[in-house]
Every structure is written in structure tokens, then in C-alpha cells.
């Protein structure tokens, strides 16, 4: 296969869904979500590795797909998106809301693009596109509780993006070329990779909802429409985990201490997931627990990789399989629980009032606003009022003084006196300078 069509195909994979986001452009197609997946499907059929450099894009970006693991990931994503698309269409038996479709396609573009990205900036761009798209998908598709979860997710997303941006800057300052491979090598040789590593770890942990940064995950699974919940594993979590693999200098550095900590955290996460699953005993939460468990497993593996580069080089590809397993496993679980719920196996939680109050992190700003309005506003108002009145009084006083003295100057007696005085002063001043 020659390069031009394959390059075009690569670009089309994220571009076509992006174009279809606009309702005007997709109105001719009956099933735009499937059409959006077509280029990716064709790309999967192309047997060899393809890649393309886009030097004029952003800071010089690229897209590409290798032969092995990346292809597997792409295949998993395409499959899940196709399933989700079918659910999207068949949920209510009627064509879905335009906005929902737009958000769906936006997220899809981000997801596929992130898998294909060959450099940090491209990955970052697509993953944040995916993140915001997914947020919109949650909001547009869900009820009150979902919105709450979505808001938590959004905050995690913003903080994570900030952390990753810092990491990106550090990488750019160190490596100059932002290819995954180049960054990996440069960071391995860097004198102080600590900040970079911690930023990457924190950022993607937030995005993936890894314990202990998992606030939004359980919330999210509770009440999503199945089409969205299905994607939870494959979209934010899987891409974030992929981010770990792509961004960290795995197999190049040897950081036993850090590796150990991460392993411990992974183990704790798995423990937590099991505990939570056992304690709550609500099968509807099972997918969430499973996701936390699986990401814990992945974390443990990551810790091993960081501590022992040799092991990583030998078994590194397992990571991709783990991601695929996680993504598809969560999806299967969601489908099963959804199906069982639909069959009435679990009582719905209708009795419980839905909590639509804003989450805690939004409350503080509201409280702060109110407080500022009360304290700052009031005192500022008082001060302004007082200053205004005082200022007015002062201006009046000045005006009066000026008028008075001007009248004083205009009286002949004073004017003549001043005039003569000035004459005397002038004579003396002139004289004194000559003497």
C-alpha cells in the first residue's frame, strides 16, 4: 500500500468524526456514528505499520500505528464504540438528541486520535479533547446524579491536564523532540526526572481514577445510560493507562523505591476494590469495583516496570493486554449488569432521593463568593460611600477656598499692594544677584 492513501486514512480517523460533530454535515447520513468509525476499521485492515509526520501541526505532530499492541487497542476501541453506538441508537427506539450524538462523536475523535498519536503534544491534545467530550457526554446523557459525577470528573480532568501540561513542559525543556521514544530516552538520561515522573503519575492517575484518586469513578457508574457506562472503561480509563505506558520512561530507568511505592498503591487499590465490593454488596457497583481493581493491577505492574527495566523490556507488552482486558471487561460487566437490571433483578434505587447539590469543591467557591459579597462588598460599599461623601465635601471646600481667594485678589487695595510688593521684590532680587 502506498503512503499517500494510508496517510490520508490516518488523518481521517480522527478528522471524520470531528467533521461529523457538526449537525449540518451529518444530516445526510442515517447512522453517522458508524460512518465515523469506518476509517479506523479500514486502517485496521491495512496489514503493515503506517505513520505520518505533520510538522506544521501544533509544535510538529504526528500520527501512526504500529503492528502490535497499538492495533489491538484500536481494535478494542472500535469494537466498543460500535457497540456503544448501537446502544445509543436503540436505547429508546427513537433517534437520539443531536447534542448527544455530537458529544459522542467528539469523544470518539479524541479517543481514536489519542491511540494514534505518536508524540506527547498530540496525545495530550486528543486526550483532553476526549476528556471534555466525555464530560459533555455524561452531562448530556445522564440524570441529576450523573451530572454530579460529571462535575467531579471535570475537576479531576482540569487538575490532571494542568499536571500533564507541566510534565509536557519539562519534557520539552529536556528533550526538544516530543516523540514518545525521544522523550523516554531523554527523561532516562535527565538528572532530575522526579518532577516529571510525579506529574505524569498524578495526572494520569486522576484521569484513570486510580485509587486513591478515584472519586469520580464509583459515582459515574451508578446511573449512566448503558451506552455511556460501557465506554467508561475504554475511554477515560484505558487512555489514561495508555498514557502511563507512553509517557513514562519505562524500561529505561531503574527506580526501585518509586516502583515499590507504586506497587504498594496498586496492591492497596486492589484490596480496596475487593473490600468495597464485598461490603457494599450492591452488584450495580460491581463494574466500578472491577475497574478500580483492574487499574490497581495495572498499577502494580507499572510499579514493577519502574523498578525493574529488564522485566519491563521482556514483558512490557502485557501492559497493552491489561488495558484491553480492562476496557473490554468493564464493558462486558456493564452490559451484564445493565441487562440484569433491565430484567428486574435488582430493585431500582427510586426510594432514595437524588442528591443534586453541588459537590464539595464547588461549594467552597460559592461560600467564598457569598462571604466576599457580604464582607467585602458591604465594607467596600460603605467605604466607597464614605469616600464619596468625604470627597465631595472636600471638593466643595476647595472650591470655596479658591473662590474666596480669587475674590480677595480682585480687590483693588490688595491688588495694588501685591503689585507694589512684587515690584520691590523684583528690584531686590535683581539687585541681590548683581551684588
Amino acid at each position, binding site marked *: 500500500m502506498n503512503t499517500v492513501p494510508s496517510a490520508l486514512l490516518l488523518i481521517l480517523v480522527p478528522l471524520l468524526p470531528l467533521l461529523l460533530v457538526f449537525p449540518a454535515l451529518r444530516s445526510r447520513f442515517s447512522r453517522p456514528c458508524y460512518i465515523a468509525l469506518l476509517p479506523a476499521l479500514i486502517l485496521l485492515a491495512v496489514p503493515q505499520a503506517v505513520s505520518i509526520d505533520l510538522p*506544521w501541526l501544533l509544535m*510538529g505532530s504526528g500520527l501512526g500505528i504500529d503492528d502490535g499492541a497499538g492495533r489491538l487497542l484500536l481494535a478494542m476501541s472500535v469494537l466498543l464504540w460500535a457497540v456503544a453506538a448501537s446502544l445509543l441508537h436503540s436505547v429508546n427506539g427513537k433517534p437520539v438528541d443531536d447534542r448527544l450524538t455530537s458529544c459522542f462523536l467528539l469523544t470518539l475523535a479524541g479517543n481514536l486520535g489519542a491511540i494514534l498519536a505518536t508524540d506527547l503534544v498530540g496525545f495530550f491534545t486528543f486526550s483532553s479533547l476526549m476528556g471534555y467530550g466525555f464530560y459533555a457526554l455524561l*452531562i448530556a446523557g445522564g440524570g441529576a446524579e450523573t*451530572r454530579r459525577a460529571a462535575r467531579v470528573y471535570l475537576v479531576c480532568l*482540569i487538575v490532571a491536564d*494542568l499536571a500533564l*501540561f507541566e510534565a509536557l513542559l519539562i519534557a*520539552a*525543556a529536556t528533550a526538544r523532540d516530543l516523540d514518545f521514544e525521544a522523550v523516554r530516552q531523554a527523561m532516562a538520561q535527565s538528572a532530575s526526572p522526579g518532577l516529571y515522573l510525579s506529574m505524569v503519575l498524578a495526572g494520569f492517575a486522576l484521569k484513570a481514577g486510580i485509587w486513591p484518586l478515584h472519586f469520580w469513578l464509583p459515582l459515574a457508574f451508578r446511573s449512566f445510560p448503558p451506552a455511556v457506562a460501557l465506554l467508561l472503561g475504554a475511554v477515560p480509563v484505558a487512555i489514561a493507562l495508555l498514557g502511563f505506558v507512553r509517557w513514562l520512561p519505562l524500561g529505561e530507568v531503574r527506580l526501585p523505591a518509586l516502583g515499590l511505592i507504586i506497587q504498594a498503591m496498586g496492591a492497596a487499590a486492589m484490596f480496596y476494590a475487593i473490600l468495597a465490593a464485598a461490603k457494599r454488596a450492591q452488584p450495580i457497583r460491581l463494574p466500578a469495583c472491577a475497574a478500580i481493581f483492574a487499574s490497581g493491577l495495572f498499577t502494580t505492574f507499572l510499579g514493577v516496570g519502574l523498578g525493574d527495566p529488564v522485566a519491563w523490556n521482556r514483558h512490557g507488552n502485557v501492559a497493552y493486554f491489561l488495558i484491553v482486558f480492562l476496557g473490554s471487561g468493564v464493558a462486558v460487566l456493564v452490559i451484564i449488569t445493565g441487562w440484569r437490571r433491565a430484567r428486574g433483578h435488582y430493585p431500582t434505587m427510586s426510594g432514595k432521593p437524588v442528591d443534586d447539590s453541588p459537590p464539595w469543591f464547588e461549594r467552597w467557591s460559592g461560600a467564598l463568593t457569598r462571604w*466576599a459579597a457580604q464582607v467585602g462588598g458591604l465594607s467596600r460599599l460603605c467605604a466607597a460611600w464614605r469616600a464619596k461623601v468625604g470627597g465631595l465635601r472636600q471638593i466643595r471646600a476647595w472650591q470655596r477656598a479658591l473662590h474666596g481667594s480669587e475674590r480677595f485678589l480682585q480687590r483693588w487695595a490688595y491688588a495694588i499692594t501685591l503689585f507694589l510688593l512684587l515690584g520691590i521684590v523684583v528690584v531686590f532680587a535683581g539687585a541681590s544677584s548683581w551684588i
Partner: protein
Amino acid sequence: MSWDSALPLFVLASSLLPGLVIFFLPEERVAIRTTLNLAGAVLKLALVGVMIWGVFHGSHYETRLPLLPGLDLLLRADSLSMLFVVLSSVLWLVTTVYAVGYLEGSPNRSRFFGFFSLCVTATIGVALAGNLVTFLLFYELLTLATYPLIVHRGTDEARRAGRTYLIYTIAGGALLLIGTAWLYTLSGTLAFTARGFLSGLDESHNGVLVVIFVLLIAGLGVKAALIPLHGWLPQAMVAAAPVSALLHAVAVVKAGAFGIVRVVYDVYGLQFSASLGVTLPLAIVAAVTIIYGSMRALFQDDLKRRLAFSTVSQVAYIVLGITIVGPLAAVGGLVHLVHQGVMKITLFFCAGNLAETLGIHNVSEMNGVGRRMPWTMVAFTVAAFGMIGTPPLAGFVSKWYLGLGALDGGQGWVIFVLAGSSLLNAAYFLPILYAAWFKAPPDAWLAERSFGGRETAWALLAPPLVTAFLTLALGLLASAPFSPLQWARFITRLEYTP
């Protein structure tokens, strides 16, 4: 007078002459006025295109008129000025279209468009000024040309805003005048020179030079809305939307920021000002401004006020970029000059559309507005994400270079300022987007005007869409030839290569 020496004059005249003619047009000659406006804007764009091509290929366009013995009125097209000239002339064209649509049927339009053209002329003059005194001249002209635009509506509020604006800017201009004159007596020249013309002075003058630097920056900082000189900007937002757009994106605020760039680069020289120890305090002021502006924006309910405080914060990026001594940060600062303009003008256009079509002025009234005016809100969303610095939009590119420059220059604290600002940006923009897209619209809008099947008039809708597209394109195609980023790199190469 040859073509090379007349071209800067032509560029100025292409907005000045239409403006002067428009002043004398009767109110009801709408067609002639619009034609004149648009013809001037297009002509200017064409001339600027010729100019930028020439500058890139090494031509020197320079107009010199004697102002005083030994002091010329100098208009010169160098690479830095071209950055600003292109921004102004492109956005002028867009804003003119918008203003024509916005002011349809309102009184005193001839006066408005006359001053509008004068304002752009002054901005172009600021950009093309080849020495400090020419800069000062157009800088003050800008003050005078903007005042009528701010008070155009003639309400008490507008007059108050105009008064505040004048108090600030005229005082600032006075400081600038003192600084300039003082500098002239010391150095005997004021011509902008790459890497400055002051480093050769005797070392005993250094103390005085610091004082002059403070004077100049204080004078320019008024327009650039640096803390604590920003008080006029939030008030000035009472002006009509096209004016706010122009004020915040191109004319006034940018003239101040551009002036600071000129002073630091072409008067003092970056290395010399760093050796004087003035860049770090300025960077700190800029950083404080960034954070403070965002904090204030968070608590505003009036949409335009929120955007105004956002401008306070965003413009300081430019200052921050050039005061972090290093080529990468400089690229970030310079490119933000363009990017901020494009993004902020989009936001103001959209705010104007909301006010004009639905009567919405406050954030709290924006629930569900995305369903009524989807295209406007798409533009708004793109620009807002650009402001936050989300890739691949324009704001990301500037932030990227700023951050990279800070690391490069060994000033890591800047990264945290950037991060904090992004966070705050998200905190005051995302609730707007959430309300607009996902909350249920009210039963009836405050003051809805009908435009047939469309969401609003074409002249109001096209400009924000164009600038939103630019926001996307500037970020996405940042590395393409002739992008602002490449041009900023071109400028910094000149500044940094010995």
C-alpha cells in the same frame, strides 16, 4: 518620495482618510459609509500584505518626517511592528463588519465610525512607530480617539466610565512623556534599535535609567492594565460590544502591552534591562496581575465585566513572556499578543450577540442559551477553551512557550502562575459553558429580537465564527509558515542572535 518610504503612510492613510470623510457624511448615507469603511479595511489589509512580504524579504519601509530639530516622526515597518499591524488590520476588518451589523439603526453612526477609524489609525501608528516619540504621539492619539467611543452611548454610566478612562490614561500618558523626554536628554536619540540603544551609556546613569524605566512602564502599564493601574478597564466595558472588542483585543490594551515590549526590547534591550534588575520586578507584577485578574473575574456576574477582568489577566501574559529573559518565553509573549486578541475579540463578539439578540448581560441569565444560539455559543466555547489553554487552540501555544521559556530561563515559579491561572480560567469559563449548553432555557428570553429563521443577523454571526476559526487555526497550524508563531520566532531570532 519613493514607494518604500510612502508605504507606511499609505497604510495609515487607508483608515485615516475614510474616517475623516465619514465624519462629514450625513447620518442616513449608510451605503456610502459602509462601503468606505470596508474599502478602507480591505485596502489596508492588502497594503499590509504587500508590506509583510517585503519585510520578510528584507525590504525597509520607512517614512521620516521632521518633528523637531534632531527628532523625527519615524514610521518604520520592522518585524515586530508587522506582528501588531497584521493583527490590527485583520481584526479591524472583522470588527467593522460586526459594528455595521451591531449599530444598525442606532443614532450618531457617522461619529462612531469616524472615531472608530481614527482609533485604528492610531493603533497602526503605534505599531509602526519607529521611535519613542512617534510612539508617544500615536499613543496619546489613541487615548483621544477611544474616549468618544467609550462615551458614545451618552448615558451617565458611560460618561463616568469615560472619565475614569481619561483620568487613568492621561495620567499614564504624562508619565510616559516625562520618561521619554528624560531619556532623550540622556541618550540624544529615541529610535527603536534591536537590542536597545542604552547599553552604551555611562554606568553612572544606571540609577536614572531605572527611574525612567519605571516611569515608562507605569505610563504604558495603564493601558496594558497592569495591577494596580487596571481600574479603568472593567468600567470601560459599558461601551458598545464592538468597541469593547476592539479595546480589549486590539487597540488600547494591546498598545500598552506592545509599548512595554518595545521599551524592554528596542529601547533598553533585554540583556541590559536584565542587568539593571528591572525585569524580575516587572515579571512579578505581571504574575500578580495574572492571578488577581482571574480571581476578580471569578466573582463577576456581568458577562462583559467578567471578560474584562479576564483581559486584565491575559494581557499580563505578554508582559510576563518578555520579562522572563529567554528566547522561548519571548516567543510565547509575542505570540500571545496575537492569540489573546483573536480569542478575546471572539468572546466579546459573542457577548455582544447575546445582548443584542436576547438581551442577556449577565452570566446568571445564560441558562440554555446554547440551544437558542448554537453557533454563537460554539464560537464562545472555542474561544473560552482557548483562554483556558486547552490544546490544540491558540491559547495552548502561547502558554506552552511561556512555560517552556520559564523552565529555560530557570524561573520555575512561573509555571505555577500559569497553572493557577489556567485553573482559575477554567473556574470562571466552564460554569458559563455548562449553563449555556446543559441547563434548561427559560420560557422567554429577556428581550428577544427575531431574525427570521436564523439565530441572529449575519453581520453579527460571521465575525465571531471567523475569529473562532482563527483561534483554532492559529493553534492547530502553529508551525505552518507565516503563522504568528513562526513570525514571533523570526522576531526573537533578531533580538537574541548577536
